[in-house]
């Protein structure tokens, strides 16, 4: 045999040296940015959280109760049942992210919008919606103008009368009850319907009722846990009940993914057991700068007492304003450009300019905001409204571009199918194009909001105060934001303790908020892609 093999000629060799070198150079280029950023983030996180100051026993306890079981369970699940693993991880992630947003929402209800005001406006909105839908159901054949004017009058009437009327009532229910009805009600409707998958009408009704009662439990649980009825109700409504509903509904649809809950139970249970054990054994935790005090107090001259509360609240309000302004404007422009605009020179000119605007430095937008809103329109400097408007202008091109991308991804065969049925363009856009493109539009908008939340320069330009000691309470009050506060600590109050503690802590909080927003966008996008 051996002699035979020698006789057969091989095919020779083709050199791949250059190709291999090229390949590893590309790998290095790919990793360079990620590695550099990771090192920086570890450095910052170490400064902010200071894990080494904790008792070794503290680390050991949490390692045994949380890290080790999580590793074992997730490793096992990941190998044997990846879909269940993803489901379990999704539940934990959803709870974490939604709890954070629940915290933000709780902040709004505690310090900015009193529950009764919210309750009255939700009531007005509900009445307006019921009226409009009722009118639509009543007679589809009524002329459009009659329906439009009737519905408009009804909406104006409900928003004009109901809030004032409710707020002037001599007695109204407790804050917890009002929030349960106005915030928990809609949440329970959605969550209950999802959770009661295929359970029939009665099952759905029961599920909705259970969800509502669960939210209402905040009224009792809040004082027990010493966090107050309002934050507890908000947290239940925004985080706990939706997560539980998602888990239940998902299991009912895909019973095979039940093992995923083991992962969620391991992580949550491990954290709880670890916390109890650490408290019982008397191990001290790390002297983290990111702690309850940091999150709930305002700036102070001493670094140890400084906090980020007004800046977090300011960022939340700014984001709400920015979203409210940029979403309709951006999506509207995108729909026009994609679906209506004729392909002519003007359209192409607008196209090119929107792309260019997306690359204009943010400080220029700050100047624009200052020029237009403060100098020209005479608005006071540094308010929520003009801060939000300036940031909205900043991200508008990004929202337009990503929304157009989403609209373009709707296949033309869908539009043709709709036109072929005798639909007008408006009916096609409303019924076919927008529903299909909506997740993509939402993803792009959230990513754009992520850019806005980290912007400092435009806020400085429009005169937002560096330091604010209380939350803004209206659109016309002065606003500060997280990046601005961090910038102030690093420049105006530049001293060793601020540098070493408050700045990294602020950065960590900002990054966590940013990453959770992006994670929502990514989850949406993945779901969107697999659905199609």
């Amino acid at each position: 045999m051996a002699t035979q093999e020698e006789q057969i000629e091989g095919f020779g060799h083709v050199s791949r040296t250059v190709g291999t070198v090229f390949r590893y150079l590309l790998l290095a280029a790919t990793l360079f940015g990620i590695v550099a950023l990771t090192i920086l983030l570890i450095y910052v996180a170490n400064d902010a959280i200071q894990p080494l100051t904790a008792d070794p026993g503290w680390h050991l306890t949490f390692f045994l109760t949380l890290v080790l079981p999580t590793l074992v369970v997730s490793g096992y699940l990941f190998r044997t049942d990846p879909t269940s693993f993803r489901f379990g991880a999704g539940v934990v992630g959803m709870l974490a992210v939604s709890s954070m947003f629940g915290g933000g929402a709780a902040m709004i209800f505690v310090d900015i919008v009193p529950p009764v005001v919210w309750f009255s406006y939700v009531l007005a909105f509900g009445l307006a919606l019921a009226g409009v839908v009722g009118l639509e159901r009543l007679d589809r054949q009524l002329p459009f103008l009659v329906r439009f004017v009737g519905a408009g009058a009804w909406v104006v009437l409900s928003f004009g009368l109901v809030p004032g009327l409710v707020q002037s009532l001599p007695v109204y229910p407790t804050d917890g009850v009002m929030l349960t009805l106005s915030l928990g009600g809609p949440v329970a409707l959605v969550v209950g319907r999802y959770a009661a998958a295929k359970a029939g009408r009665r099952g759905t009704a029961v599920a909705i009722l259970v969800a509502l009662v669960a939210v209402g439990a905040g009224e009792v649980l809040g004082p027990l846990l010493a966090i107050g009825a309002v934050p507890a109700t908000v947290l239940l409504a925004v985080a706990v009940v939706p997560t539980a509903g998602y888990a239940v509904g998902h299991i009912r649809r895909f019973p095979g993914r039940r093992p995923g809950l083991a992962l969620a139970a391991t992580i949550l249970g491990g954290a709880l057991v670890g916390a109890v054990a650490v408290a019982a054994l008397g191990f001290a935790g790390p002297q983290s700068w990111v702690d309850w005090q940091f999150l709930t107090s305002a700036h102070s001259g001493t670094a140890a007492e400084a906090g980020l509360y007004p800046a977090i609240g300011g960022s939340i309000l700014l984001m709400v304003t920015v979203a409210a302004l940029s979403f309709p404007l951006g999506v509207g422009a995108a729909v026009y450009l994609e679906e209506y605009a004729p392909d002519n020179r003007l359209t192409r000119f607008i196209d090119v300019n929107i792309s260019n605007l997306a690359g204009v430095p943010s400080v220029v937008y700050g100047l624009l905001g200052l020029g237009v809103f403060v100098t020209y329109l005479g608005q006071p400097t540094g308010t929520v409204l003009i801060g939000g408007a300036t940031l909205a202008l900043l991200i508008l091109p990004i929202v337009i571009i990503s929304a157009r991308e989403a609209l373009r991804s709707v296949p033309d065969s869908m539009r043709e199918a709709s036109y072929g049925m005798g639909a007008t363009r408006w009916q096609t856009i409303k019924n076919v194009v927008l529903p299909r493109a909506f997740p993509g539009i939402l993803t792009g908008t959230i990513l754009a909001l992520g850019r806005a939340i980290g912007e400092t320069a435009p806020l400085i330009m429009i005169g937002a105060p560096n330091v604010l000691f209380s939350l803004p309470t209206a659109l016309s009050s002065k606003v500060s934001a997280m990046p601005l506060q961090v910038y102030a600590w690093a420049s105006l109050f530049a001293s060793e303790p601020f540098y070493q503690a408050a700045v990294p802590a602020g950065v960590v909080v900002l990054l966590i908020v940013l990453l959770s927003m992006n994670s929502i966008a990514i989850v949406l996008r993945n779901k969107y892609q697999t659905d199609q």
Partner: protein
Amino acid sequence: MTENPEQEYAAGESTDDPTTDDMLVETDVSGSVASSGPTMSANTVVRAENVDVWYNDEQALQDISLDIPENQVTAMIGPSGCGKSTFLRCVNRMNDLIDAARVEGDLYLRGKNVYDDDVDPVALRRRVGMVFQSPNPFPKSIYDNVAYGLKIQNKEGDYDEIVENSLKRAALWDEVSDRLDESGLELSGGQQQRLCIARAIAPDPEVILMDEPASALDPVATSQIEDLITELAEEYTVVIVTHNMQQAARISNKTAVFLTGGELVEFDDTEKIFENPESQRVEDYITGKFG
């Protein structure tokens, strides 16, 4: 684009007038007998007279004239790029959606020229259903897919009943009756195409245009669709474009052969086309010598 979506029903009003209808039917019969030899037992629904279509400067259809009879299946066959789909899309003015397309000549639907200025293409399309090459259900529930035409056209009536009947006529009801709220995209390819047919017939159009409805399907699904088309022809006028000559021979009553360059070479009863065509080019095409 010449489309004006706000002006709905313009075409509907002018052609609903019964007197015009009757008059036109008479002229149609006599006219077609005179012009194109074959027996005209049925009434003409769609009549094309000297239709030319250009995409920019390229001519896609040359001087097409033909009469499509009522309650029969008319097949259009021919090699790729011969303009048979283009002709189909002239009937419900889907070509309006393509900026580069230009249509000349006259195309009548029940005696009304659909390219007249007072015809609203949206209203026209409500009377002409269309099924496309690849199944394209909306990402909505099965029920909403079928009810789509009813909703956008604001039709009166019991939607549940119409949806059920349409699905039954599309031979899909037995397979989906217990899961009407599931997404139409979860069905198999053949089921999706039958869903599209149910969607097209739900608003009760006068003509159904089918653009290679079975070309993306496997043989079993194809034969189901073919049976369905034969049944639909009892109530509707069906115009079908197909690549598959056997399919045309199996299901159609009349066949139009388009050849390269957008010419209508022969239009006659299907039997005659396949057994004894007048044109040598048609015979070559049908016997597989080219195309």
